[in-house]
């Protein structure tokens, strides 16, 4: 399996990108040249230079330091919102798929309703109700991930529950819960891992989208989407384009990294899944 992953050159690239961001997040205080919150207005909107490698923003804050610290915010948002989707979606999907019947009918119609909304719209509605902020944005993105997990896990369970080893276990008198936990879930791990990696990419993108709209992380928190929004909204896109461009590059790189890694993992873990996620 690992061999198959290594063979996949793009996946390696993706893994390296993700690793780089993980390192940046973990060691942000040591890597960032300056305090990401320290502003000095008289140094505002400076283009990239040796003093400020990526230039400064509208308040004279060091853009490089803000992007490095922003990695923490973006990854944290991605992990937590994927975690919410996973924690809620997986059991619901498993139960729905395993028991079928009325349970399945009801949960799947609820999922249908949730899926009828574009995910980002659903997230905006949740934030509008709860109020803007980092934690609410995580919750919002997490909630909008739930239906995808329900569907994917249910699909896998539908197939697995008909297999011989499940029938064998059932024949020995094992309870439904026992079968799900002991026999079915271990076989679902591959699609869940792949899905989670790909969802990390979406989470980063959506978090940035919410931040751009002013619904995510609140100032002065360095968050890529909010930084990009500031560059655009404060009329700097033509005067000081670096304020908009560099956070945008960071978002694009992170999304690319997780997507490539996810694709590679899918091929490596289960070739049969190719093209299905």
């Amino acid at each position, binding site marked *: 399996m690992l061999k198959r992953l290594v063979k996949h050159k793009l996946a390696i690239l993706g893994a390296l990108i993700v690793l780089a961001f993980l390192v940046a997040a973990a060691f942000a205080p040591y890597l960032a040249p300056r305090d990401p*919150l*320290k*502003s000095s*207005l*008289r140094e*505002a*909107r400076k283009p990239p230079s040796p003093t400020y490698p990526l230039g400064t923003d*509208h*308040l*004279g*804050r060091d853009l490089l330091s803000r992007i490095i610290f922003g990695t923490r915010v973006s990854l944290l948002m991605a992990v937590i919102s994927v975690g919410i989707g996973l924690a809620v979606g997986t059991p619901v999907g498993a139960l729905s798929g395993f028991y079928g019947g009325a349970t399945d009918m009801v949960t799947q119609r609820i999922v249908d309703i949730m899926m009828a909304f574009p995910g980002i719209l659903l997230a905006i509605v949740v934030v509008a109700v709860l109020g803007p902020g980092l934690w609410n944005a995580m919750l919002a993105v997490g909630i909008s991930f739930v239906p995808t997990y329900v569907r994917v896990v249910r699909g896998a369970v539908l197939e697995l529950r008909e297999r011989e080893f499940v029938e064998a276990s059932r024949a020995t008198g094992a309870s439904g819960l026992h079968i799900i936990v002991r026999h079915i879930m271990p076989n679902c791990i591959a699609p869940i891992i792949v899905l989670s990696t790909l969802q990390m990419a979406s989470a980063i993108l959506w978090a940035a989208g919410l931040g751009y709209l*002013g619904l995510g992380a*609140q*100032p*002065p928190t360095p968050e890529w989407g909010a930084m990009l929004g*500031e560059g*655009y*909204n*404060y*009329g*700097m*896109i*033509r*005067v000081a384009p670096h304020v908009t461009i560099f956070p945008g590059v960071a978002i694009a790189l992170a999304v690319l990294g997780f997507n490539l890694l996810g694709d590679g993992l899918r091929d490596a873990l289960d070739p049969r899944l190719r093209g299905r996620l």
Partner: protein
Amino acid sequence: MRKLGILLAVAVGLMGLAQTPKLGGELVIAFGTDPESLDPNKITSAPAGMVLTHVAETLLTMDENLEIRPLLAQSWKLAEDGRSLTLYLRKGVKFHDGTPFNAQAVKDNLERFRKATYAFLLFPRVQTIDIVDEYTVVLNLDMPFAPIVSHLTHNFVALVSPKQIAEVGDKEIMDPVGTGPFKFDKWVRGEYVRIVKNPDYWGDKPYLDAVKFLVVPSDATRLVLLETGQVHAIMRVPPLEAPRLRGVKGVEVVKLPSVRTIYIAFHYQRAPFTDVRVRQAFNYAVDKEAIVQTILGGVGGVSDAPIMPLIFGYAKQNPYPYDPEMAKKLLADAGYAKGLKIKFYHPTGRYMMDAAIAQAVQAYLRDVGVEVELITMEWAAYLAFLRKPLEESGFDMFMLGWGCVTLDADYGLFPLFHTSEWAPKGSNRSFYSHPTVDALLEQARVTVNYEARKALYADLIAFLWQDAGWLFLHYEEQINAQRTTAKGLIHHPREYILAHKAWLDR
């Protein structure tokens, strides 16, 4: 600089007159905020005033050079003792519905206006309104009210047809029927207001067939609309874009003064801002000059009084210098050596770079150990939030602007600092209250003598400055832009673009 701005505004106005105007066409003006109402009794903002002033006229007016001029009243006379104001009305004027304009129409309008809570601040001393004859009205006051003439130029005191007043009852007017050069046509909320030529206008008839006020909240989008020629004029060009825009062919950038002061008010009745040292410390902590130069690109000036220099009663103070050490010391003296936490409410997209300025203030206060939580709201919700009574008020400090459109200190100070104007009734939303201030404000209202009144405001402003009721920020200037094909537009310091005499060179 200010003079230059005014000259420029006039120059743009005059350029239209140099050529022979062409008739017809629809002019489109893009602005950022949808009017909250078009009822003279309900409106509270400059964007609404701008639309209304084309449709419904006032008794007196203030031109772009800030001179008071006759409009529906041809002349006026204030009695020696200041207790009565006689208005001689223009003859032969008709409202858009054909109703004649006369003394009864003025009385009906002013009586209706007097019932509005907000309008009350313009007419606190008017006791009776007498009709002398068809075209003469007398306002009787119980005591002198010095700013009354300038208050009558306020665009919110616009007159609508008495027939409409009778029909509308207590409801809100959505389609004002006035006497202006344009008639109300259509208002699609959040999109545009359209007005059409009034062919029976009493004065010089407008050249344009119609004017459309397009609501475009995004600064960047308004800019693109102008550059691509889809609109003829836009308001509030982002200051950083102005230099580039000056080089665009077919576009003219107009910089002119505004009468608006931007401030951050402290909750005067609640700790920590009950301590004057904390209020002063905040004033020392923020580098206002850097905000004006860097964020506003020099489009404005650092406040050196709670009203801006063009306004009667202005008395120059020394701005609190940027001195973080002094701020820290004052905070320590007040018992906040370990810092404090503050909730700061601010608007987004209402004033020039408002959110960016709020962020800058947050960063400066962080440097002196104050942790500031920024909270922003949509404009209407924001105003409603700041109009709650003292017990329900939830802010520590907030950012707001006040356009002193009557050009008289009374309108710039009384509603914001007098105890009787506390929210939810009035506009004193920070619950400022001080007996010295109340006394001086009241005295200045009844003092008719020009110099004596000026001296009272000088004392008042000096006191307010020391007491630091606000974090004094800056006053704005305006940058508008227009296509060179739009002639005769007047850019007004009240933050209006006026199309009364405009025409399109097609």
